[in-house]
C-alpha cells in the first residue's frame, strides 16, 4: 500500500525466551481453572510440532476428565455431550469447508445447524496464523475415525491443544487407550525432540506423562519451530547493541556468521537460531533501509493518489505535513497510554476486590450463605469497582500521566 519504512524478513516463530511472568503451574479446581490451565498451555505452547501430534480425540477426553472445575464440568457434563459439542463444531467446519464429511456425525448435527450462521462460515475455525498442513495422525480406533477430517484441519490441533494439561499424569494414563498414538511410540519420539534448555524456557516443564507426544511431524508452516529447541526471543535495544558490536567485530553484517556472533555475544540462553534470524533481519534493514530510497524514479512519476494524499493534508508543504502527521501520532500515543493506565487500574481494583471476596467467602465456610457461586458475581464486581471508581479524578482522564503503580483504592486526596 505504501512504502514501508521497515523491512520485514520472515523469521521462524519463536516462543518467548525471556518471559519472566510466573504462571502458576498447578491448576486449581475452580471455574478459573480452565482459564488458568488453558493459559498455561498457551504459555507452554510452542505452537507447533509438539501439539501437532496430539490427537484431537485424546485431547477431548483429557479435558473432560480434567474438569473438576465447574466451568468445564457443567458444559461437558457427560462425555457424550462434550463429544457432540466438539463434533458439532467439527461437522460445521466440515460442512462449511466442504471437505469430506463424516456422514454420521454431520447428519446427527445438521439439525443443530440453525445457530451456525454464515458468520461462522470460514470464521473463527480458520486460523491463518500457524497454518499447518494436514497432520499425519493415525486413526487408532472408532472414536478416532470420527475425527479423521477434523484432524486434517490443523487449526483444531492448535487451539484444542491449549486446553490440555500435561500436568496430570493420571489423566493421560487413563486415556492412553484412546490416544491415537501409542505411548511407546511417543516415548521414543520424545527423545528425538530436543528438550528446550531448562534455564531458558521457563514455561516449558518437562512432562512426566506421555501426554506430550512429540513426533517429528513435518509441519511445513513457515512460522513453526523446526523442533523443540527454539523459544521465542524478545530482543531489547541493549541486546541488539551487543549484537551489532559482535557483528562489527567480525567484519560486518555480510561477513559475520551466526555462529561467530553467538560466540562473541556470550549471552546465556541465546541460541544460534535467534542470532540467525536476527542477522537476517539486520542485513535486510541495513542494505535496504527505506524502500522509498530506492526510487529516485518515484519522484518523477506522480500518481494521482500521491497528489490526493497531499491534498489530504491541506496542500501544505512536506514539512508541515510531516509535522501534522507527527502531531496526530503523538496524540494517539498519549491517549493510548492514558487508556492503558486506566485499564490497568480497573483490573487492579477488580483483582483486589476479588481477593476480598474470596477472603470473605472463605471466612463463611461454616455453611452460611456464600456468594461466591452466585451468577451475578460479575455484577457485584462491577458494583464494587464503580464505588471505588468514583475516586478517579477528572484529571486522570484527560492528562497524560507517568505510569504509576496501581493501588487498590484511589482516593481523591492522592492528587
Amino acid at each position, binding site marked *: 500500500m*505504501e512504502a514501508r*519504512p*521497515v*523491512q520485514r524478513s520472515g*523469521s521462524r516463530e519463536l516462543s*518467548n525466551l525471556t518471559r519472566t*511472568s510466573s*504462571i502458576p503451574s498447578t491448576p486449581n479446581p475452580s*471455574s*478459573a481453572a*480452565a*482459564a488458568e490451565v488453558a*493459559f498455561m498451555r498457551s504459555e507452554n505452547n510452542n505452537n507447533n510440532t509438539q501439539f501437532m501430534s496430539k490427537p484431537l480425540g485424546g485431547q477431548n477426553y483429557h479435558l473432560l476428565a480434567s474438569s473438576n472445575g465447574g466451568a468445564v464440568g457443567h458444559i*461437558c457434563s457427560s462425555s457424550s455431550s462434550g463429544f457432540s*459439542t466438539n463434533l458439532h463444531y467439527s461437522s460445521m467446519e466440515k460442512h462449511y469447508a466442504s471437505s469430506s464429511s463424516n456422514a454420521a456425525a454431520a447428519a446427527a448435527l445438521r439439525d443443530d445447524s440453525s445457530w451456525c450462521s454464515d*458468520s*461462522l462460515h470460514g*470464521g473463527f475455525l480458520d486460523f491463518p*496464523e500457524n497454518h499447518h498442513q494436514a497432520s499425519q495422525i493415525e486413526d487408532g480406533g472408532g472414536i478416532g475415525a470420527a475425527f479423521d477430517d477434523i484432524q486434517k484441519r490443523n487449526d483444531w490441533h492448535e*487451539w484444542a491443544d491449549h486446553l490440555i494439561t500435561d500436568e496430570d499424569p493420571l489423566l493421560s494414563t487413563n486415556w492412553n487407550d484412546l490416544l491415537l498414538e501409542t505411548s511407546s511410540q511417543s516415548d521414543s519420539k520424545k527423545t528425538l525432540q530436543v528438550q528446550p534448555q531448562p534455564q531458558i524456557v521457563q514455561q516449558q516443564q518437562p512432562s512426566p506423562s506421555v501426554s506430550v507426544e512429540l513426533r517429528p511431524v513435518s509441519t511445513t508452516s513457515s*512460522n513453526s519451530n523446526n523442533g523443540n529447541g527454539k523459544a*521465542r526471543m*524478545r530482543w*531489547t535495544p541493549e541486546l*541488539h547493541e551487543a549484537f551489532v558490536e559482535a557483528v562489527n567485530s567480525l567484519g560486518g553484517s555480510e561477513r559475520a556468521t551466526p555462529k561467530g556472533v553467538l560466540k562473541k555475544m556470550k549471552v546465556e540462553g541465546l541460541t544460534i537460531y535467534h542470532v540467525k534470524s*536476527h542477522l537476517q533481519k539486520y542485513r535486510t534493514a541495513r542494505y535496504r*533501509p*527505506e*524502500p*522509498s*530510497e530506492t526510487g529516485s524514479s518515484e519522484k518523477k512519476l506522480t*500518481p494521482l*493518489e*500521491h497528489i490526493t*494524499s497531499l491534498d*489530504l493534508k*491541506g496542500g501544505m*508543504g512536506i*514539512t508541515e*505535513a*510531516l509535522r*501534522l*502527521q*507527527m502531531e496526530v*501520532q*503523538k*496524540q494517539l*500515543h498519549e*491517549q493510548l*497510554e492514558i*487508556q*492503558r493506565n486506566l485499564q490497568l487500574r480497573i*483490573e487492579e481494583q*477488580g483483582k483486589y476486590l*476479588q481477593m476480598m471476596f474470596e477472603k470473605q467467602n472463605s471466612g463463611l465456610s461454616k455453611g452460611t450463605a456464600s456468594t461466591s457461586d452466585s*451468577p*451475578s*458475581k460479575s455484577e457485584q464486581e462491577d458494583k464494587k469497582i*464503580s*464505588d471505588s471508581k468514583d475516586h478517579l479524578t477528572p484529571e486522570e482522564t484527560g492528562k497524560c500521566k507517568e505510569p504509576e503503580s496501581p493501588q487498590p483504592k484511589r482516593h481523591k486526596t492522592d492528587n
Partner: protein
Amino acid sequence: MKFGKRIKEQIQESLPEWRDKFLRYKELKNLISSPDPAEFIFIGLLNSEIEKFNAFFVEQEEDFIIHHKVLQYRIQRLVEKYGDNDDETFREEIGEIRKDIVNFHGEMVLLVSYSNINYTGLAKILKKYDRRSGGALRSPFVQKVLHQPFFKTDLVSRLVREWETTIDAVFPASNAEAERGYERSAAVSSAAAGEGIFRNTVAALVTMREMRRGSSTYSALSLPPVNLYDLDLVLQPIHIPSPILS
C-alpha cells in the same frame, strides 16, 4: 456491537500486513451467542488469538529495534558528512530522514494501538462471556493477559518518546517559503509512505473516541470518555474523508 464495528473499521484502515493479526471479535461474539458455547472452545480460541498477538508483536518489536539503530546511524552519518553545510543534497537527505523518522514513529505508535485494541477486545469479549454464562472467567483471564508479551508495550513506548524528542533536532525551526516550494515537488513521492500510517493513526484515534463515548452497557469497568480537546484542534484543519470518521 459498537466495538465490533469499530475494530472492523480499524482493521480496514490498518497496514495491510497487519490485517489478519487482529482479534477476531466477531467470531468470538458469535460463539458466545451460540446456544451452547463450550467454555473450553472459547478459551482455546482466546489462547490461540493471544499467541497470534504475541508472535506478531514480538516480531514487529524486533524489527523496530533494528530499525531504531539504523535510523540513528543514518542521522549520525548525515551530520558527519555535511556538518553545517546547508546545500541541496543535505536538504534532500535530511528531508528523507525526517519523513522516515515520522513514519517510524507512526508505525511504532500503531503497534501500541494494535496491542491496546486487542486487549480491549479481549476484555470486552470476556465480559460478554461472563454475562452470558454467569461465570467469572473475565477477571483471572485478564490478569493473565496483562502478563503477555503483546501487552507489555513499554519498550516500544519508550522508543516512541525518544524519537519525539529527537525529531525536534531534525526538524527546521521555521518553514521558509523557498523550502516549501522545493518541498512540494518532493512531497508527492514521500507523502505516499506516510499516507497509510497517517490514515491509520487518525482512524485509531477516532476509534478510541467513539468507543469510549458511552455504551449501552456502561459499567464500572467501562472507560470514561476520551479527552480529545487537543485532538479536535489538531484534526480541524484537515478534511478527513468520511469513512474514517463514520
